[in-house]
């Protein structure tokens, strides 16, 4: 789990993002709309915590996914609950961000939405559709024209997700 100094630091950050009362975070997009082209930052926190109001606990829980995997944790016993920052949980977290309707599959439409935000505005819808089709074709193995979690994991098996999805919280 996270150390004490890290918790205090995150809490001060949380309260600075907070607009409302009693430690719950309300969506005031102006506060979060910092100048940044990365996709949907205003929606990002919403998606991250999967609810409209986020309290500190949810915030912490979300950020806990991004802790780097320590070597000594790997030798922990298998029958405890898997820690939040394991590879499979990290991947699951990313998967849930694609999967808007929470049906455990990334359908073509969900993929299209993500693609649209990432690729920019000067690509025609038809081409975007082709790209989405191709992505699904590459990943899909059971022929249902959507990407399930297992297929998602397989696509990313060569990518070093543990290192990519980790942030070292210093001091």
């Amino acid at each position, binding site marked *: 789990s996270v150390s004490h100094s890290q918790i205090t*630091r*995150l809490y001060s*950050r949380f309260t*600075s*993002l907070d607009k409302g009362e009693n430690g719950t975070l309300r969506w005031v997009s102006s506060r979060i709309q*910092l*100048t*940044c*082209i*990365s*996709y949907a*930052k205003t929606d*990002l*926190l919403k998606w*991250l915590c999967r609810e409209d109001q986020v309290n500190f606990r949810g915030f912490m829980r979300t*950020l806990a996914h*991004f802790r*780097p995997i320590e070597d000594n944790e790997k030798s922990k016993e298998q029958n405890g609950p898997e820690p939040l920052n394991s590879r499979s949980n990290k991947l699951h977290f*990313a998967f849930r*961000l*694609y999967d808007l309707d929470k049906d455990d599959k990334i359908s073509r439409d969900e993929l299209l939405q*993500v*693609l649209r935000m*990432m*690729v*920019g505005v*000067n*690509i025609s819808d*038809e*081409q975007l559709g*082709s*790209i989405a*089709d*191709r*992505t699904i*074709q*590459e*990943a899909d193995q059971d022929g249902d024209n959507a*990407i399930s979690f297992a297929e*998602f994991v397989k*696509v*990313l098996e*060569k*990518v070093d*997700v543990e*290192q*990519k*999805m*980790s*942030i*070292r*919280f*210093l001091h």
Partner: protein
Amino acid sequence: LDYQHVQVPFEITLWIMLASLAKIGFHLYNKLPSVVPESCLLIFVGLIMGGIIYGLNDKSPPVMDSDIFFLYLLPPIVLDAGYFMPSRPFFENIGTILLYAVVGTIWNVFGIGFSLYGICQVKAFRLQDVSLLHNLLFGSLIAAVDPVAVLAVFEEIHVNEKLHILVFGESLLNDAVTVVLYKLFRSFCEMPTIKSVDVFAGVGKFFVVGLGGVLVGLSFGMTAAFTTRFTKDIRVIEPLFVFLYSYLSYLTAEMFHLSGIMAIIACAMGMKRYVEANISLKSHTTVKYFMKMWSSVSDTLIFIFLGVSTIGENHEWNWPYICFTVIFCLVWRALGVLVLTFFVNRFHVNTITSKDQFIIAYGGLRGAICFSLVFLLPDFHRKKLFIAATTVVILFTVFVQGMTIRPLVDLLAVKRKRESAPTVGEQIHIRFLDHLLAGIEDISGHWGQYYWKDKLEYFNSKYLQKILLREYDQPKSSIVLLYEKLERKHAIELAEAGQLGHTLPHPSFLCSGFLCSNSDRTVVTDQKLEDTLNLDVLENIQEILARNLYRIRRMGPAYNRHTLPGETEPGEHAKEILILRHRSL
């Protein structure tokens, strides 16, 4: 016989011809390059040539002139390295690379210098007159890892990307440190007294040299990108601009006593993105081809000259000094890597395993830069000793370390480069994670690499692209580019299989060619094949082909000397197929 008239160009061409023929010769024997790295073979050829010349003329063969090396032979290699540098791993590891390049080199210089001075104190070796300053000067030129040698050896052993980029990046970026220290110690040698002010001036100079070089490079790079914006009507000279601007940046930096290598790398990396969007596809291929060709020729010439220059009477053989030099080079590098990696692993998510550390330490090859620098030393009575020591170190590192590194990599089972076809899905997910991480970093108030990358992207899209790119709409993102590239390849494969004119391939021909070789599930009945091409059948077949036939040509490593990164030109009817496919799906 008018030999005097054509002598200089004639001899140059003959040398280049010899180099190229030697290269062909090596590749005729398939087994040889896998055991002995090419650089060793080339030095060997150079030794033979040197021996022949020595025997014929009975005087020392021409030594490689340092000016020729620094002005003509080195820039193409560094340009090639900088242009094809994979920028994502480079910038992800930039902290580590800089740490190794700067702190590691300084550590090596002082370590080697002081320990050699200690050796000189021993009376038995008759080295009393080599002063501390001379030793430090020698240390400064022998400590730096050489990019030419590293490239030559590492590109044949295909280690994992991170390891490759660490060693290679370090060898490129330590030029700034080397330049500063070398010039500093050389000026100290000539000054009667040294004040501490001078030392501080030296430290300040390092920053000026390094950052100044990068700035010069970037400004030339941006100018190049800007120039290519207007070259739409004169496509033929587009590649020339790339080379001219890069070479100018190198020469300008050298003129101001800044680091030329860093300038040319900054220029290449800065302009690549914009230039590639502006110039035509053919110009693009031309640029790649010429770069590879020039760097290949330079590389070969350097090694041959190294061999030639070894023979001769330029050496003073003081065996204890030489042996200890070699030992100290190895020892100090190993220590430096160990200590620095310890610090890196504490502050970074990316840990460097001990196997990787060993390869980093072992891969610290010295090469032609040391050799040229030693010839540039002012003439003093012990210069020949230094020349001899440098030669031995270079030969040792290239031959012994170069030859044994491949078996060691196999023995230690170092993680190799993953050979896998790129997929659009992977690219999308990686980009998505980039954005996600940038958001998380921003939210948690942590200014990490994703945050800065994001800010840079923003700056790029808002300002730079508008100025430097020809068309006003944004260049296609890498996802779209990758998708298009893969689609083209697919279409070409279809075209090749079909061997066709302008009509679509008859399904029977395609299927018999492809499906037979497939162990697969779907079967297309003969009945359907005999039907005329209606759209359903076509779609079915194309879908089958798309799903089962994904043999994408493997992209060769971008930093391979012999082959180009995978590139195909869409033929006329490959494009037709593409259009027809899109229409039908």
